């Protein structure tokens, strides 16, 4: 076993354990915190995969903004503990079936594609990837200009939507 593999396995265990922790926690605050840890673990995976920009964006956007908002709303509403989970209308069985199918699929995927997929080249100096950062910038403004611009409209719409929902019209 190489060091990389050991590192991967440790992080993978952390990622799965925190995901399960999120799923099983009774307290929504704990769920959110587990999810933050999970995102952090995934950010480390991004580093290992040679994507430092994505890794840092992951921390900034998910851990730094999205999950803080979640925590904020949970605390604001006092929604830490809601009534224990009740399984509705066979959704539990649906979930179980889905889980079995997806896991079977992935195992099959793993076994069948094991030969075909490549081994990741070790991202030697992931600390020195200014070039890739420039490449990402260029890609965003040349190849992916349209999605980039549409995303800005999307953010505008989300902002308008959130304000429309939470702010009542005067006298309305």
């Amino acid at each position: 076993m190489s060091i990389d593999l050991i590192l991967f396995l440790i992080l993978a265990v952390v990622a799965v354990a925190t995901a399960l922790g999120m799923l099983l926690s009774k307290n929504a605050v704990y769920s959110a915190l587990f999810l933050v840890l999970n995102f952090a673990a995934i950010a480390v995976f991004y580093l290992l995969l040679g994507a430092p920009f994505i890794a840092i964006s992951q921390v900034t956007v998910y851990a730094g903004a999205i999950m803080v908002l979640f925590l904020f709303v949970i605390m604001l509403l006092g929604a830490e503990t809601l009534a224990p989970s009740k399984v509705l209308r066979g959704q539990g069985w649906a979930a179980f079936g889905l889980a079995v199918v997806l896991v079977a699929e992935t195992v099959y995927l793993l076994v069948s594609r094991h030969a075909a997929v490549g081994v990741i080249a070790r991202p030697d100096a992931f600390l020195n990837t200014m070039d890739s950062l420039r490449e990402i910038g260029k890609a965003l403004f040349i190849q992916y200009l349209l999605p980039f611009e549409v995303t800005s409209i999307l953010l505008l719409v989300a902002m308008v939507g959130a304000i429309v929902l939470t702010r009542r019209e005067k006298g309305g």
Partner: protein
Amino acid sequence: MSQYINPSDLTTILPAIVLTVWACALLVADLFIPHERKGWTAVLAALGLVVSLDITLIQAGGTSTGFKGMVTLDGFSTFLNALLLVSGLFGVALAYGYVRRMGLERGEYYTLLLFSVVGMMLMVQASDLIVVFIALELLSIPLYVLAALNVRQIESEEAGLKYFLLGSFSTGFLVYGIALIFGATGSTSYSGIVTAASAGTSSLLLTIGAALLLVGFGFKVAAVPFHMWTPDVYQGAPTSVTAFMSSGAKIAGFAALLRVFALAFPTLTADLTPILAALAALTMIGGNLIAVSQTNIKRLLAYSSIAHAGYILMAFVPYGNPQVMPVSVAAGLFYLVAYAVTNFGAWGVVIALEKQGGKGLEISDYAGLFWKNRPLALAMTVFMLSLIGFPPTIGMVGKFYLFRAVIDGGFVWLAIVGVVTSLISAYYYLRVVVNMFMQEGEPQTGSEFWVNFTWGLTALMTIIISFVPQPLFAWASSAVLRLF
């Protein structure tokens, strides 16, 4: 030629760009429109839609790709963009009086609606999965907000939340599907996918990816078994929103699905055709059977819209057969028009009868409508017949084309399922008609010009197009041919 942006990029999606700019300007202009005169916002929004529709029609016949192959302008997109813009106009017309009557009047209603239409148009024109994904979000997020707009009614807020949660759940499937497709082919553009797929590499990943994509879209177009959210959301949302989203979101979803499957996955026919056939059959059976027991007109129409998703899905089933496919896609497009027209008409009638606080929505509230308001009752009858597929209505013509295409493709059993479920559906649609004619009752009807206009116009269209369907079908066929 600049490496960043060219005039041809802009003209490819010109109608969408114009509408976006218009919506942004409207957002600002709305601030200066006093609260009592929000009708002006509606008028301005409608004007924007008309301008965009104009440009779309002027561009008809042109083909181009833009933004490094991210979007395509072709007959297919022109046809559907025109349909979407007309749907937007109907959406504004139905909302105009309704939102004021229900006390929901806010300028942002129309702005959000315009942004949603922009998302739909981009989705129709997308030729890269990344654009499909973002356009899907752009069309969905305004709809989540609009569905929850009625803060006085808890049903509306819950509808918004349910729609949102299920919608983002389906987005998860969509994104994972795109990830797997990207893994299998190294590309997210349709041309890249099909190039890699015909080189014959790793079709399993691609198949799973396509299936997950189908799940994601299945939620959006409300196909059984991904339909659970539909009745609640359609019932809870303000009716004008429901009318718009039941047509617009469905058209855009099916359009993107058609383009993706026809252009990107022609190599996966063997794997996907049975799934699609099963999905279509399940959706028709499920939607129609549950609709039988409904007593609320909004829920009834919700299940009816699920069932119609099944009929439209039939158009996808023979997509791998190059001979039948153009006809079946044309039939699908025609049916989308038929569905949109009929659907807006039916919801228009619902709006005409709806009262404050969710009253006037039971089927029993329609009792005796014929004796009270004959034109309205006759229009509703036309729409119900069209939804059944009974002559002389556009629904009948649409079903005829669809069944013919499916039989040509060799799926006779599916056509039989379609006919049988249509017969089942006759039971509950006719119950509404019987109620209007045979029962005693004192229904209260509102009379707003634009609502009357909508149901009147759609009723006329439903009948007239059924007598002369050829031009429309020819247009749909030409649209499809240019897809390739």
